[in-house]
């Protein structure tokens, strides 16, 4: 049984005899020498990852103005930061959007601009007190003008993450990128073989106080991240680093179309090989790490799982879903992950980076609960009108006109013989047919590409679809595609009025 202390490993770093390899290189070493031999041979395994980590931000201290201000609100390049802590401290979060530029510029861009030494416009307001009389402040400063710029990321370096696809019939824009309709592509994130937490899945060496590579500088793990859920292999980390020492090579702002901004964070964690169990864990390969492909076309917390895949499959360029090969895209950069693991290896080899003994290991037994909600989650079926009049697609357009007039409905869902949806016909479609003297059947004048709601959709989802498509009503379908009701913007307005 091999046992090595952190002190022993650090003394080898000190005298230059340390043997460091990356987690990619470790795979073959363990295959050749076995866990026992590898544990004797290798002292440290380096990992790396470079991907979008939305839960990131920086604490800034501006120093006191003359006369002093106790900022109650602050904007950095028009991006609001949180300043509810004392007078001149603020937290700029990566996903906060600019009030003028929207999704093109956000907290992440402010952070990258600070690292690059660019000037930032600061605007702050306050209510004024005897000790802090100033009510308004406008200035321009850069990172060198700040007392502190300390990155504190509440949730980084997910052990692994779900892959995303889109089973709906329209393109969607998500934090996993653009997802093409009918499962047209799959996107994923994570460095697989190099993923930090996957290389120490039992958290035997990683914990509070572990020194790490963060954004090109030496940072620390300060505990488990929010939503840390080790029992499902979804561990996360909370980390700290000095922004003033970071490099824009490893901290990069990003915008996900239709979603917003995020921060690409480069992180590398050294795994000290303290015993053969730890050595064996670092031999993990892409083929050993599985994840679920979820349908992001379903706008719910509980997205359906469409397939289970390995990182090896994801990284091959295609994965199979229901017998079809679907092209994949990585949203994180494996090349950068490899660069980070390599750079950390060089730091340790060169005696510039020492591994540390955690003060406390990460918890292994926590899980992530869903939100407790006071309001019952209202579904479309709770507010829809069930007295829906439909018309057969083979009926004449005269009959459709008559039905609309008799019932005072402006939207008439069109059904096939078996009651399933075929389209929708409105008073306008009928006017158009009359204007064009086009006296045909309903199926010839109806809108075939009808936007529908499912009875079990949350009301918020129906409201968003009405809004996005500029509609005032949608037929409601059951799971067999049969029309069982209609939901209108009127129904939703009334619901909101009742709530208020």
């Amino acid at each position: 049984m091999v046992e090595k202390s952190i002190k022993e490993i650090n003394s080898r770093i000190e005298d230059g005899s340390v043997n460091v390899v990356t987690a990619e290189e470790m795979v073959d070493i363990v295959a050749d020498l076995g866990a026992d031999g590898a544990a004797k041979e290798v002292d440290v395994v380096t990992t790396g990852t470079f991907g979008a980590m939305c839960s990131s931000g920086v604490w800034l201290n501006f120093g006191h103005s003359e006369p002093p201000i106790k900022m109650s609100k602050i904007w950095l390049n028009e991006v609001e930061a949180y300043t509810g802590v004392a007078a001149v401290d603020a937290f700029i979060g990566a996903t906060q959007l600019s009030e003028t530029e929207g999704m093109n510029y956000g907290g992440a861009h402010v952070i990258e601009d600070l690292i690059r030494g660019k000037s930032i416009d600061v605007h702050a307001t306050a209510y004024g007190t005897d000790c802090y009389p100033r009510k308004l402040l406008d200035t321009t400063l850069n990172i060198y003008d700040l007392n502190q710029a300390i990155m504190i990321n509440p949730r980084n370096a997910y052990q692994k993450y779900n892959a995303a696809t889109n089973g709906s019939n329209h393109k969607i824009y998500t934090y996993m990128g653009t997802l093409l309709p009918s499962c047209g592509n799959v996107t994923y994130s994570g460095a697989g073989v190099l993923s930090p937490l996957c290389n120490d899945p039992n958290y035997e060496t990683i914990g509070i106080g572990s020194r790490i590579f963060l954004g090109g500088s030496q940072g620390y793990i300060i505990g488990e991240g929010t939503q840390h859920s080790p029992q499902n292999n979804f561990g996360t980390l909370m980390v700290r680093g000095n922004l003033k020492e970071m490099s824009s090579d490893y901290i990069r702002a990003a915008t996900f179309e239709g979603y917003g901004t995020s921060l690409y964070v480069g992180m590398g964690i050294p795994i000290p090989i303290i015993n053969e169990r730890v050595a064996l864990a670092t031999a993990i390969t892409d083929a050993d790490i599985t994840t679920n492909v979820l349908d992001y076309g379903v706008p719910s917390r509980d997205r359906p799982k469409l397939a289970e895949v390995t990182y090896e499959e994801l990284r091959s360029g295609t994965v199979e879903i229901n017998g079809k090969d679907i092209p994949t895209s990585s949203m994180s950069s494996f090349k950068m992950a490899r660069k980070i693991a390599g750079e950390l290896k060089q730091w340790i080899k060169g005696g510039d980076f020492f591994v540390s003994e955690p003060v406390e290991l990460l918890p292994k037994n926590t899980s992530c609960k869903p939100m407790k909600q006071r309001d019952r989650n209202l579904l479309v079926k709770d507010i829809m009108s069930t007295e829906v009049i439909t018309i057969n697609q083979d009926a004449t357009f005269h009959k459709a006109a008559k039905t609309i007039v008799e019932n005072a409905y402006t939207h008439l869902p069109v059904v096939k013989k078996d009651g399933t949806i075929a389209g929708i016909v409105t008073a306008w479609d009928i006017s158009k047919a009359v204007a064009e003297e086009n006296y045909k059947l309903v199926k010839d004048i109806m809108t075939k590409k009808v936007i529908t709601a499912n009875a079990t959709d949350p009301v918020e989802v129906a409201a968003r679809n009405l809004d996005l498509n500029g509609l005032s009503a949608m037929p409601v379908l059951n799971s067999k595609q049969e029309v069982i009701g209609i939901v209108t913007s009127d129904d939703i307005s009334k619901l909101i009025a009742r709530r208020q």
Partner: protein
Amino acid sequence: MMIKVNISADIVGEPIIAESIIETGTILNISQAHFDSNHGEIIAEVEMSQFPKIRDALISRGAEVAILDNPIMRDEEECVECGACISVCPVKVFSFDREWNLQIDADKCIQCGTCLKMCPHNALILEV
């Protein structure tokens, strides 16, 4: 080669593409088409030797024809080589080599612009 055909409002209802194809016997591989009441636009691939014939046929019917020779470009400073662009490209312009460097086969590009929105780092550029 890739070409773009613009059709103005006054002739957008006429079958000028079909007529030009039949008249010249040229194969147009249409990769994108957009039509509304104001204007029509088609992006298509055509053999270089056949281009003059189809160009003349289209122009004689009132269409405008432009050669698309500005395929997708990458800003190497901004690109982090994640590969987000790979799966949304309809013609497989993007790929990784063995060392996970992003490769661009610009000759394949049909200039649809789908990858521009996908790129999280705003690193892809299309000059039209």
